[in-house]
């Protein structure tokens, strides 16, 4: 009936290591393994490098002193940058978390479909794709250049706003997705006993989704703490401690660890470069901790 030749009946069931397909398969196995090693290798070398070069520079003075003037090697500290990173990320979190969680609630609980929700979702996706340097330029034009914040230009506040723009889509998305995981029965149950939507969402649904949202927020903050591009033209940099007495603490140019890595890393002075590594060390350790913490949170909620 058919003219098809059947070659199999002649060969045995045994593995033939020289059959082209088997050679090809073994080669591909090897290649895939090699690729995986190549992918993991940079991570390992980066971490080792940072631990080796930065870990050595970590002394108590790092946290309590200011950086040296270019050309000098005393004092060796970056206390101002550590505080500055905390300030800038703090402002960012204070702005982005309420807005992001509120927006997420709107998407997941209020307007699930409809053109406006679609439009907001689209906006979230576009914002997530905006390069971080552009967030910096945007806040520069909006806040720094216009001196809209009490007449001050570069400031921790401006830096925080730029980071907030960056964090916003992450927080909206994690909230949206976290809330979607909450079972519909819980909502109906709460509404069914006469609770208002406000009470249902804030007292029942949000607590049930708190762990994925918290995970996303922790990761978002950790990522923001390491961002540099949005800060170089907003928070700028400063060799001094934040000045709280004059009332300009948050409204003055502020050093951050990430900008310090950039500024000092490209300087030709060894102490500065070492401080760049020290800042890298602190950032990387912090980010690793945040990731482990979020994993732990996720596992906690799963069990």
């Amino acid at each position, binding site marked *: 009936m058919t003219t098809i030749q059947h070659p199999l009946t002649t060969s045995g069931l045994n593995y033939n290591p020289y059959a082209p397909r088997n050679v090809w398969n073994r080669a591909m196995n090897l290649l895939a393994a090699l690729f995986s090693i190549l992918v993991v290798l940079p991570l390992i070398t980066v971490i080792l*490098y940072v631990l080796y070069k930065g870990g050595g520079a970590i002394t108590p003075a790092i946290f309590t002193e200011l950086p040296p003037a270019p050309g000098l090697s005393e004092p060796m500290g970056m206390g101002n940058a550590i505080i500055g990173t905390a300030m800038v990320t703090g402002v960012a979190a204070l702005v982005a978390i309420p807005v992001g969680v509120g927006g997420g609630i709107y998407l997941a609980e209020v307007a699930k479909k409809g053109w406006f929700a679609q439009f907001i979702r689209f906006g979230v996706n576009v914002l997530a794709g*905006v390069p971080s340097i*552009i967030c910096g330029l*945007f806040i520069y*034009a909006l806040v720094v250049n216009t001196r809209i914040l009490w007449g001050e230009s570069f400031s921790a506040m401006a830096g925080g706003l730029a980071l907030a723009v960056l964090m*916003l889509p992450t927080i909206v998305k994690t909230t949206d997705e976290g809330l979607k995981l909450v079972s519909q029965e819980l909502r109906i149950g709460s509404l069914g006993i006469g609770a208002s939507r406000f009470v249902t969402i804030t007292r029942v649904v949000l607590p049930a989704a708190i762990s994925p949202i918290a995970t996303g927020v922790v990761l978002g903050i950790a990522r923001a703490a390491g961002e540099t591009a949005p800060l170089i033209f907003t928070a700028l940099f400063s060799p001094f401690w934040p000045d709280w007495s004059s009332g300009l603490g948050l409204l003055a140019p502020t050093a951050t660890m990430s900008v310090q890595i950039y500024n000092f890393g490209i300087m030709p002075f060894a102490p500065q470069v070492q401080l760049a590594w020290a800042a*890298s060390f602190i950032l990387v350790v912090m980010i690793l901790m945040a990731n482990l913490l979020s994993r732990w949170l996720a596992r906690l909620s799963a069990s």
Partner: protein
Amino acid sequence: MFTHKKRPWAEKLVDRAFIRMTAILASVVSLTVFGIFFTVGFQAVFQGDLSSLLPWNPDSIWQGIAPWNDEETFGVRWGAIPHFGLGFLANSSWNPVRSDYGALTPIYGTLMTSALALLLAVPLGVGTAIFLTEDFLPQKLRTTIGFMVELLAAIPSVVLGLWAMAMLNGFLTVFTPLHTHLGWLPFFGTEPGGPNLAMASLILVVMLLPIITAVSRDSLNQVPIELRQGAYAIGATRWTSIFQVLIPAAISGIVGGTMLALGRALGETMAVTMIIGNSTNLSASWFSPSSTIASLLANQFGEADDIQVSALYYAALLLMILTFLVNICAQVIVKRLALKYD
């Protein structure tokens, strides 16, 4: 008898106010997107700050068209878009002395670094994703490797830049033989002697790998096990079923992830700025210093004024449009290619 108890009006009010508030907060997101496009666009068209939008500002841009003003429009200081027009895209000079600006070099640098990075990162990332979804290693070990790849994504780009600067000399010794043996190729045409475009591409590879690997792994994991069984049942080998069945079934996710990565590569700033050399001279060679739009912004914005600021915003606008289009494409592709399984 039951009496119908009305909800207290306060509760109703709280409810409505709360719903309103979430809607407003959600609109902030879209407003921000709009604000970014508007601001960057504005700064690319006009010199001067945003406050010149206010009609009562002495520098207001409206004075030219204001009915009460019959003077000339000398107050309006036009920016880079009216000045340079589309020629900006084709002009390779970036000359603050003559105020002659064109973005050809950074555009070339942006596209070239991203293309090179994707060229390397896609096979590496997809290969790793396959490795992590096949049963070569015990599940525990695979999860650990997957977690490590995710960690790589969390390392700040400025730290990777610092690391790349420390590794530069090592890589230069790798690049040098390429130049000596293949120097007749324009891409290898110059002696590698410092920060360069190739190095920037490599650091981009490191940054893209986690995205591509994670997204590809997830979409490969979502391919129904029945498809793999089907392929095996007709006598396909492991790699035949990977190439002919699993990858085609996961292609929407893989391509989507690649586009996402491309969006990241185009806009990546710090690591690239630290290692690309920030030269605005156009060179085809991968071993000569170059710049990308993002690195140009990071490197020059601080010292720029007047028309140069506007030119930088023009470049920023181009970058935004580029990443915007890439991200839209990513979403469309994912929707288009997505296979429907129940």
